[in-house]
């Protein structure tokens, strides 16, 4: 255990209060020699490691093996649905802002009803999007426009529900 602190010093891993004694110990030639030797061992190991490389076919074999693995796909689908849900929430907020404008007296009761019902309706529309096989197909196979397509469907559902 005589040189354990020297070893930790080489690694920059001395604990608090150990640096002083370690530096003090290094006044002794044998401790200095140990320090040099530890560095030398590290240099040799690193030089040797630098020569070690996987074979040329390794990357291709690895890719073939990974290609045979199924993707971790659940999260991706959820992520797209979450996007649609967020957009629906935004739409609902826009609708609420619209409805916050001073309405005609005759529409007041209906407007209040719509305001109260909107978040629930948006949620129902989102669930409808999630549950609908057509929408799921669109989500999984299309690009960014997907969300717009899904959103258009969800909007339609939400509007129909509002009309009702």
């Amino acid at each position, binding site marked *: 255990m005589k040189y354990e602190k020297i070893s930790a010093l080489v690694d920059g891993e001395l604990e608090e209060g150990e640096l002083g004694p370690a530096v003090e110990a290094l006044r002794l030639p044998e401790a200095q*020699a140990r320090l040099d030797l530890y560095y030398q061992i590290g240099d040799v190991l*690193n030089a040797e490691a630098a020569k070690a490389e*996987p074979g040329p076919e390794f990357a291709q074999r*690895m890719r073939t093996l990974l290609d045979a693995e199924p993707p971790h796909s659940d999260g991706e689908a959820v992520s797209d649905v979450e996007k649609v849900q967020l957009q629906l929430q935004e739409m609902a907020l826009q609708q609420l802002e619209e409805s916050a404008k001073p309405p005609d007296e005759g529409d007041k009761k209906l407007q209040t009803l719509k305001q109260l019902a909107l978040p629930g309706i948006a949620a129902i529309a989102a669930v409808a999007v999630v549950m609908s096989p057509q929408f799921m197909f669109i989500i999984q196979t299309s690009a960014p426009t997907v969300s717009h397509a899904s959103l258009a469907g969800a909007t339609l559902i939400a509007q129909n529900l509002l009309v009702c």
Partner: protein
Amino acid sequence: MSCVPVANMGNPILTTERDIDLQLVERVQRGDKLAFDLLVSKYQRKLFRLVLRLVVNQTEAEDVVQETFIKAYRALHQFRGDSAFYTWLYRIGINTAKNFLDNQGRRVPTSTETNAEQIETFEEGENLRDINTPESMLASKQIAETVNMAMNELPEDLRTALSLREIEGLSYDEIAEVMDCPIGTVRSRIFRARESIAERLRPLLGTSIDKRW
């Protein structure tokens, strides 16, 4: 581990390798297999060098690395980013290498399974005895051969700890995480590994290392 600057609305922020790895892992978890290819490309050499220190044979090391990546890929849904991806990967790699050696009946005992005295006084190879030669023969090549030989004959836990430190550049804290042991044990293992190698260098240096200078 190094940091890379990432532009963010005109304000540069530092993103660590760990953050980047975590983002790649999250992409894999969402179904993006290409992101895992990037992780493989990034870590295959490092993992190979580590594993090669454990199983020694090149072809076997490649097999162990492949198995490690496949295991990591399959278990990736369990990875939550509590530790860095590379410490998690190295842990899988070390366990896979241990299992491989066990199955081959070739596992080198751990330091607790080996008498400490035995480590320091084991029979040296004939080639080492033969190189107890004049100072002029102490070429760096011989030193390198001795260091490598001594390294390969170390008990598994000492060899792993020193490899993770010297070859992979992990901190004691990270090594403790990979090896699932206290940080004090890591420090002790690295020190004992270095001492064992230093002891093997003694015949080359002609006298006791302590009395050499």
